[in-house]
């Protein structure tokens, strides 16, 4: 227990975190690349084609992991925001700021791959489906956080403002999702349900799980790299950093 608290305290120290994250990235990088390669090969080449959709379904190996991690990313951001507001830990600000653009990009990837899949399957790039609309709103929420951070001159205030905005968004996300669900069922469009709730076969599921794992690692790694870049900038004149980087 004491060890855990000591570890958490150390996370709050920029010099210690800079060293620790460096080691972590060195280990994460090969694992992420390996998982991405294995998952992509398995999903795109080995897994059997779908009974009805043929090969076009294979885009789920990018689409689903991106969507899953994009959603989780908002909660990472919200937790970092709460930590920053409650305990005033500067590293939490850096973490929140680092998660936002990664989450926004993943949301955009999920939307674009969904559109590419939708064209041959549904015959339209875009349909106003409940889940698609919710993802679009999530993209706006992410972009709002990024834009608010950029708009403040004072970056300490920017981080705090973003933390408040993220928490307000977190309270609202379940309401937004539920309301968009109701909105969709209220306006029942003609026929969209292409694939029913058919259970996914193990031969297709396992590569998907590998890809989801790979995307989580990719998110973590991008976030760590963003945080390191931010630390380099914030402490560009600090003694410890100059020592660490061997510049005089």
């Amino acid at each position, binding site marked *: 227990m004491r060890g855990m608290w000591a570890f958490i305290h150390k996370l709050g120290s920029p010099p210690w975190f800079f060293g620790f994250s460096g080691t972590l990235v060195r280990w994460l990088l090969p694992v992420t690349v390996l998982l991405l390669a294995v998952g992509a090969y398995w999903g795109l080449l080995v897994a059997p084609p779908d009974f009805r959709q043929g090969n076009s379904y294979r885009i789920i190996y990018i689409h689903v992991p991106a969507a899953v991690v994009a959603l989780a990313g908002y909660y990472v951001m919200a937790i970092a925001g709460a930590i920053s507001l409650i305990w005033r830990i500067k590293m939490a600000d850096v973490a929140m700021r680092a998660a936002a653009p990664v989450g926004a990009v993943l949301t955009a990837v999920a939307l674009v791959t969904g559109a590419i899949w939708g064209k041959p399957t549904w015959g339209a790039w875009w349909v106003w489906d409940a889940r698609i609309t919710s993802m679009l709103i999530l993209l706006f929420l992410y972009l709002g956080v990024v*834009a608010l951070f950029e708009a403040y001159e004072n970056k300490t205030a920017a981080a705090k403002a973003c933390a408040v905005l993220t928490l307000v968004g977190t309270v609202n996300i379940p309401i937004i999702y539920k309301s968009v669900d109701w909105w969709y069922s209220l306006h029942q469009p003609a026929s969209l349900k292409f694939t029913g709730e058919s259970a996914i076969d193990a031969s297709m599921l396992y590569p998907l799980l590998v890809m989801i794992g790979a995307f989580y690692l990719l998110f973590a790694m991008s976030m760590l790299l963003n945080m390191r870049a931010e630390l380099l900038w914030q402490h560009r004149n600090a003694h410890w950093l100059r020592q660490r980087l061997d510049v005089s």
Partner: protein
Amino acid sequence: MPSVDRPSLSLLTAFGRQFRRHGQALMASLTDVANPLLFFFMVVTLFPLGLGPDPQQLASMAPGILWVVALLASLMVSARMFASDFEDGSLEQMALASHPLSVLALGEVAAHWLATGCLLAVVSPLFAMMLGLPSQGLGVLVLSLLLGTLCLTLIGAVGSALTVSIRRGGLLLSLLIIPLNVPVLIFGTAAVTEAVMGRDPSTWLTLMGALAAGMLALAPLAMGAALRISLDS
């Protein structure tokens, strides 16, 4: 016993004075009250011009049109909600006062809602009739707008508090609060549509009421925190 921090006014009196001060300021410049209504009127006029004058089509789209325009009008007025207080320094005095900033800010927001959202809800049947909304939807339109503009004003106040120190924060404000306004729009349009169809709209109205009650409890906290951040920046 030192009583340095003991406020001389009760919380309710402080709230009331904030309400009256902001209300008087709004009344003093009538344009702040009249402009949102004019905006609402003009944007409603644009829809028949864009969609064509077919009464049936307009009537079927009227709930959506009226709600979207109400949302835009509230967006427009939210931008200036705390601006004058920030510029003339009264926001700093509010922050220094011994009463919680969230309650004082809520006093202003209440005055603001009464002068914009509430007024807009009351006159909305006029515009609804111009669009040919069937008369059985009018009562629900007013009721849903009363509850809905309260939600929109509270969300707008949080957004306004976050962006008040930023120069040209208007566009940013819309990016921040439009996604948060989605449930209000959905519930409001659904309530009016149900009423027009002759069905019971109470599900949507109660949902909207719940939303308004929840926001009334939580939004002031976010507002207070956001205003302090804006003052520190």
